[in-house]
């Protein structure tokens, strides 16, 4: 390594920079925790921890009824994490000697590098979806409850449904969607990221109203709502879209597709009829289809005798995977997930009335990293401080 290179990177390797970065990180985490009082965990994650710059409102540190305006810019988690990583790597390249005395420190720092890298892998590659299954139901897909899609379902073939799923990113007001296998185009007249359905008479503000389908039958319109993004556990946005199919320049009517109808079914599903053929139209959570299926045999929600404190949630399921010739029963419960084909199934939630379960399906290629990092870090600290302690005790004995 040339000396000039060494001199150039030296400031990056300084321990003063380490201390400054640690201090900055401490404050960021502190602020990012306070922010969770008003903001959902996902929003906080995005704005504070997986960002380069964050504007931190002064309000988050103060009682909410004080109404303090103003915010200040602050380095985000990705920036600080990267800087710490650079600082650590250059320090080892420039400052640290490969001495036996320092083996503990090397181990600890290597463990931390692994952890940071693992968090990066998780941020980039981990997939988290939900599988909601009613008792007796069989499901072969997982849902991403942060993203919706507009599904047009052709059920004319009894063997298999034909589904055209329009991703959330295309659902913009004024957009016309053309699909080669659909006999009509779809015009998006309105889209709300979060909406509440109510009777026309009670609605105010920005409102969308259909003239066909479920919304009309139930005398409902949608009123725009601010995005919640999971402020409280289990609370989700309920988007709605106003859709007009157009064939040969002629409008077929205007339907309202709402996630609400998918979550809480309202009678028969709404359909667009064209050329004597019915097309179901639904706004639903984005589905990821799986090569296997899961049937919920039984869901159990036990409480402690004489209380409402939950003692256990468990899902007794049947896993069927023809491609691997698997057909077996599995019991998934708290702290006892099922790991299968690189995915892990956790008991995450349940449907009201204990009639169904919600499993979280996670694919995280980096899941093993923390285990290794933990062992390395613990070993490194033990060696380092253990050596200190031994020297200290021996020193006292000698004296």
């Amino acid at each position: 390594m040339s000396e000039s290179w060494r001199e150039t990177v030296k400031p990056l390797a300084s321990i003063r920079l380490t201390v400054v970065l640690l201090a900055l990180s401490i404050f960021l985490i502190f602020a990012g925790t306070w922010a969770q009082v008003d903001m959902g965990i996902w929003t906080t994650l995005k704005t504070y921890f997986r960002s380069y710059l964050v504007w931190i409102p002064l309000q988050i540190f103060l009682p909410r009824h004080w109404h303090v305006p103003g915010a200040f810019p602050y380095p985000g988690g990705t920036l600080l994490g990267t800087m710490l990583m650079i600082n650590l790597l250059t320090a080892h390249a420039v400052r640290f000697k490969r001495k036996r005395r320092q083996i503990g420190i090397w181990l600890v720092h290597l463990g931390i590098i692994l952890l940071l890298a693992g968090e990066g892998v998780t941020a980039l590659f981990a997939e988290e979806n939900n599988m909601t299954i009613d008792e007796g139901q069989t499901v072969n897909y997982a849902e991403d409850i942060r993203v919706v899609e507009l599904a047009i379902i052709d059920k004319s073939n009894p063997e298999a449904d034909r589904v055209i799923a329009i991703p959330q990113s295309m659902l913009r007001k004024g957009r016309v969607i053309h699909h080669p296998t659909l006999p009509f185009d779809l015009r998006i007249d309105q889209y709300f990221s979060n909406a509440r359905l109510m009777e026309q008479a009670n609605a105010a503000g920005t409102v969308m109203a259909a003239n066909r389908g479920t919304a009309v039958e139930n005398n409902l319109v949608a009123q725009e709502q601010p995005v919640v993004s999971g402020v409280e556990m289990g609370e989700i946005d309920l988007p709605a879209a106003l859709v007009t199919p157009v064939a040969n320049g002629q409008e077929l009517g205007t339907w309202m597709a709402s996630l609400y109808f998918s979550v809480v079914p309202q009678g028969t599903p709404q359909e667009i009829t064209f050329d004597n053929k019915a097309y179901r139209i639904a706004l639903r959570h984005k589905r990821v289809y799986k090569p296997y299926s899961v049937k919920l045999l039984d869901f159990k929600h036990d409480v402690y005798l004489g209380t409402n404190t939950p003692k256990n949630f468990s899902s007794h399921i049947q896993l069927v995977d023809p491609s691997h010739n698997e057909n077996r029963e599995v019991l998934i419960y708290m702290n006892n997930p099922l790991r299968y084909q690189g995915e892990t199934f956790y008991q995450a939630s349940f449907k009201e009335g204990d009639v169904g379960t919600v499993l979280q399906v996670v694919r995280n290629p980096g899941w093993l990293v923390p285990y290794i990092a933990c062992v390395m870090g613990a070993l490194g600290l033990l060696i380092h401080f253990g050596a200190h302690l031994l020297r200290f005790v021996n020193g006292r004995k000698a004296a």
Partner: protein
Amino acid sequence: MSLTPKASLRSGGRFAAVLPVVLLALCAFYMISAFKAPKEASEFQLGQFGGLPVVDLGRVKPLDTLARTSLMVISNKQTMYLKDGEGTSDHRHAKGLQKVSAMRWLMDVMTKPEARNYTVLRIDHPEVLALIHADRDRMYFSVNEIMEHRDVLSDQIERARAIPSSDLSPFQHQLLRLAQSLEVYFKLEDVTGLLLIPPAHEGKVDTWQSFVQAQKSPEAQASPSPAIAAYPAMFQAWAQNQPADFNAALTGYLGTLEQGHASRMARVRFETLLNNVQPFMHCMTLYVLVFVLAIVSWLGMSRPLLRAAMWILLLTIVMHTFGLVTRIYIQGRPPVTNLYSSAVFVGWGAVILGIVLERFYRNGIGAVTAAGTGFLTLLIAHNLSLDGDTMTMMQAVLDTNFWLATHVVVITLGYASTFLAGFLGIVYILRGVLTRGLTPELGRSLSRMIYGIIAFATLFSFVGTILGGIWADQSWGRFWGWDPKENGALLIVLWNALVLHARMGGMARQRGVAALAVGGNIVTSWSWFGTNMLGVGLHAYGFIDSAIFWMLTFVASQLAIIGLAMIPQRHWRSTRAAAAATRTAAPAAPGTPILPSTA
């Protein structure tokens, strides 16, 4: 520690040799007397009765625990005043009444309608008092008094229940507490609904029944439990004041329990013992004594006082350990299961570490910080116990002995050691600024102690935090979720890492490390309690109103101490004293530089 009396003879003669022994003996006597069974106030064997098992809030416990925790929820006390059908929790109106146990109160609640006239329901909030048109200087009310205002109260309670708990005003909080007190009271009053009847053989908790359930169950009718005959007999004997009948029925029933439920009864007996002994209360008293002895030892008579402090500290940690282990045995769980037990365990860990330090340095500092943290954490535990049962059942997601034994124990030791380092920092700063005690040698020792404890804290908080992540990965598929409690744990790791790096890089020396260690107290208290006060996150398992006030007070006090540390060191009393000593020792050289600042 040298146990030969010769060393102390040198420093203070016979008195000095005897003093530690006498103090230790007194404390040992104090401790043993705590184990004595309380005297029965009447001919009824109420103590024995309190040892009968009942299922409440999901677990088998002695009636004595049910009585204490219920009275605690209702009146904030474990005893009350009673005589001839008149009863109150208010000591100002207790003239002519006798102080009685919670069990005695529960007996009346279960058997006598006039118990509704005992003024035991505590109401603090002026607006709640106004709601029932009560004088502001009254604090305790009877159930009958409250029920006169049932319409207006239930209306207000319904309103408070309709909104999320994070939005409750203090008034609504108090209302809901009152509602809870009433619920507890009516639950106890309805004896037929209590889960008093054990299954025929030792088995699951779920198979316990109430009288109402047993009456409806054909199996219970076919082979009735001895409890079904025993309880009515005892209640009747109590109501008619027939101690002999009462005791006979009680003894008979206890005999059947000992046969069918031997191992359950052993645990129930231990819990009754724990209730009677109150080991942590006595530990608090003893920690105060140790603290005072060790501080006074810095002023003079150091050897014998220090020795006495150390001996009593060892005695106290035995008692502390007894309480801890008994709780582990009763619950069949690792030591930390909720906020209360974490406080008990943080104190225990800090005291053990302090004892180790004292063993090495023998200068009273380990003893002072051990006793200080031990007392403070048990005080916190005591205040947390006012919420009711301290052995609550675990929420489903937390119900795993493996992770409770690893992650929770390790992270709690991380809290304990970070606190201990912080208190060592306080000793450094206060002795340096306010007294002449901080000699250069002592400064070096203290600094080394702080470093050692922070190293320990780093190890435990680092491993504990990652273990927590692994648990999260195991139970809900996410290693790190930036959840408040996780962030709190991470903050402790980062803070300790910051101190170590600042020290390593020469940015903080003795004084700086001491001040930073005190900062660790703030970070730890925030992770421990502050994150629960946010009211968000999967870990938020407790919320206490006044806790916010105390937390802020604590943070302010720590900031004040850090502020003291900011005073340039040449103005510290210890530094000036050392400088003056140098001048008197060498008057010929007035230009001798004062000690180099170690900022």
